[in-house]
């Protein structure tokens, strides 16, 4: 099998970015949208073809092989060299399919959504840059290559969040996303350096090797009671948590919704934010075997807490994109906890498979939810739930696809989310009861908040609109229909035949009792949402009031932003920054100013000596001569 052509998948978007970026003023919008869509279409076809040929013929003796094509990019010494290349294994192929599908759909959708926008071509060149970076990240053969593309997706995310650069809130949101993730990436970088120092390589295959120096020899070094390797893995997870909006680095994700909605669908729902999950999955053997999976425990608990907190916050938000943002965070928490509770061999590695499965299905239905929300926002010109209502008759396609996506995320039987969520719950049930209970709770909350959104937008009160709402153009509805198809069909893909922690296919089956519990909890959530939001009534208000303080806390997202602001503004800028500034101003500057002032004062005193009277100078000269003569004479006679 030769997969070297996969290098084209990232290179096509790179070429698009260069062309559209350089000639953004010259290419008319009508063409640039097509160029971008066609380019990504090629990547889309190549990715599906790769998946088809890999999963059919990539096995040797029942084990999926890893194909690596690489070249040395920077060669410092024999040991220290940075490679660039592509790595083809089950999860990278799966990610290729996810990224190319969503990116292609978003390109098609943006042709309608961004129509008439000033920066139309610029928008498509940014999308191409993002797609290139994300493909590069997915195909990375070593930690350093991944880090480079990791930063590139961060940069393109920054560009796209701040796309409406005349809007101060968008600029601030872009900055916030960049700074928060950069801060987390510092941990990632230190982690990379630690791991590669102890393993002597950046290469994923060597680091992950069961006979490699990391996995066999992790106990050799320790720091503060833990292996140094574990510290490295925790630091790498810090970077993953920053990118994937896990607590406490999630604060940038809701604000990132300032970007255009297709961007939210592509970057902040389906692809970039799951890069953290992908990173942990990529290093899974190391996470699992080093220190008996201590770092993996942290992954699991952080994922579980994030998913619960985000689901609670999502209930109270009124901006529909923010609800979806918190929902994304909650679902990524699901993927993280599934990885965290997973084991390595065969059926024991169910969590790993479930995590990747959920990543796949979540990408489809969450991108669809965002595209649906974008379609609604496009018509209503508002992000707020209060401005919507009773849109189902006006927008039948958006309504149906949104309903499919909602059922999918709520885990309704037969839809994609039902299957992947069931696997996650089964994995959690087998390994950690506490996490299982919290995940079931999250499943109920998810069903509730997503149907609150659904009923709020498409049923509920009859709003009066400035323009009569109408269905979005075909360019927007076709991608939605395709994703709706995937949100159902995605669940029937036999994922365990393709993806497992040890690359050996195994048989997984639906765990009926667990599925029944989760489904009934989901039903309760849907029915509650039906009662509360189907028709306009005062139930939600009364309910919110009965929770009182807790509701207020949740509405303000548990004051995470305020805590961050307090820490940065009051403590960092106020105390540390203030005293540092005082020291700089008064001690450092003071010394320099003091030297200058002393010189000025002295020269002020003695400048009168230069009077301009040549007779005075002559007098000094003669006087000096006399003094010298006297001294010489005195020495001479003695």
């Amino acid at each position, binding site marked *: 099998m030769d997969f070297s052509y996969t290098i084209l998948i990232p290179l096509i978007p790179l070429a698009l970015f260069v062309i559209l970026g350089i000639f953004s003023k010259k290419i008319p919008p009508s063409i640039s949208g097509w160029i971008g869509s066609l380019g990504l279409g090629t990547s889309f076809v190549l990715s599906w073809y790769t998946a088809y040929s890999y999963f059919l013929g990539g096995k040797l003796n029942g084990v999926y092989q890893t194909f690596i094509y690489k070249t040395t990019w920077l060669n410092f010494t024999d040991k220290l060299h940075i490679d660039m290349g592509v790595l083809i294994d089950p999860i990278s192929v799966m990610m290729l399919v996810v990224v190319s599908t969503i990116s292609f759909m978003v390109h098609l959708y943006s042709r309608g959504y961004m129509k008439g926008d000033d920066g139309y071509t610029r928008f498509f060149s940014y999308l191409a840059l993002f797609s290139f970076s994300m493909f590069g990240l997915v195909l990375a053969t070593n930690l350093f290559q991944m880090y480079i593309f990791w930063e590139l997706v961060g940069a393109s995310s920054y560009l796209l969040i701040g796309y409406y650069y005349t809007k101060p809130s968008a600029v601030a949101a872009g900055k916030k996303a960049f700074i928060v993730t950069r801060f987390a990436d510092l941990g990632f970088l230190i982690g990379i350096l630690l791991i590669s120092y102890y393993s002597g390589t950046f290469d994923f295959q060597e680091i992950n090797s069961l006979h490699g120096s990391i996995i066999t020899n992790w106990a050799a070094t320790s720091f503060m009671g833990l292996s140094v390797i574990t510290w490295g893995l925790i630091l790498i997870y810090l970077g993953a948590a920053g990118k994937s909006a896990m607590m406490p680095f999630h604060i940038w994700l809701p604000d990132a919704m300032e970007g255009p909605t297709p961007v939210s669908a592509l970057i902040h729902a389906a692809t970039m934010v799951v890069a953290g999950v992908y990173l942990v999955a990529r290093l899974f053997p190391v996470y699992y075997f080093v220190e008996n999976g201590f770092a993996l425990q942290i992954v699991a608990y952080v994922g579980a807490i994030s998913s619960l907190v985000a689901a609670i916050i999502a209930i109270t938000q009124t901006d529909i994109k923010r609800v979806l943002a918190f929902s994304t965070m909650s679902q990524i928490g699901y993927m993280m906890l599934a990885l965290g509770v997973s084991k390595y061999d065969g059926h024991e590695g169910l969590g790993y498979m479930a995590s990747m499965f959920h990543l796949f299905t979540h990408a489809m239905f969450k991108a669809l939810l965002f595209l649906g929300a974008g379609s609604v926002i496009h018509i209503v010109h508002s992000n707020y739930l209060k401005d919507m209502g009773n849109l189902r008759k006006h927008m039948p396609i958006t309504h149906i696809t949104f309903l499919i996506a909602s059922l999918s995320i709520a885990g309704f039987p037969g839809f994609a989310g039902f299957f992947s969520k069931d696997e996650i719950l089964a994995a959690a049930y087998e390994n950690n009861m506490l996490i299982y209970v919290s995940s079931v709770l999250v499943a109920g909350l998810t069903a509730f908040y997503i149907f609150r959104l659904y009923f709020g937008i498409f049923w509920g009160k009859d709003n009066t609109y400035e323009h009569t709402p109408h269905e979005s153009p075909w360019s927007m509805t076709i991608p939605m229909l395709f994703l709706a198809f995937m949100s159902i069909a995605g669940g029937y893909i036999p994922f365990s035949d393709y993806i497992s922690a040890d690359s050996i296919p195994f048989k997984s089956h639906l765990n009926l009792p667990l599925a029944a519990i989760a489904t009934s909890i989901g039903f309760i959530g849907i029915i509650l949402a039906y009662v509360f939001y189907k028709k306009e009534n005062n139930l939600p208000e009364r309910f919110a009031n009965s929770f009182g303080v807790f509701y207020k806390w949740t509405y303000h997202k548990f004051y995470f932003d305020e805590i961050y602001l307090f820490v940065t503004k009051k403590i960092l800028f106020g105390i540390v920054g203030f005293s540092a500034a005082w020291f700089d101003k008064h001690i450092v500057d003071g010394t320099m100013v003091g030297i200058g002032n002393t010189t000025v004062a002295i020269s002020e005193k003695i400048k*009168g000596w230069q009077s*301009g*009277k040549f*007779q005075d100078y002559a007098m000094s000269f003669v006087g000096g001569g006399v003094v010298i003569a006297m001294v010489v004479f005195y020495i001479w006679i003695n």
Partner: protein
Amino acid sequence: MIAGINIYEILTLTSILFFIGLYGFFTRENLITVLLSIELILNASALNFVLINTYLYPDLLQGAIFTIFIIALAAAETALAIAIIINLYKLIYSVEVKDTETMKY
């Protein structure tokens, strides 16, 4: 060798001449008189050369020759100084020392 006059008396005379010149140089207000004072200083030293030559080394001539050099030098210097003073006068219409004090701090 001048009869009845001893070298110390003549050296006293030239010293007095030198210091009169110096005093004039320091105190005169007019640039021309300052120039005259310089001439006095030069003459005092020229006189010294001649006298010391005559009294101490009557067979040699170096002192006298040096005196001729000093006179030539004094003439050149005077010409130069007069030229400067004339130009200064053209510029500021004054030959007073106090009007030349603009080159200061």
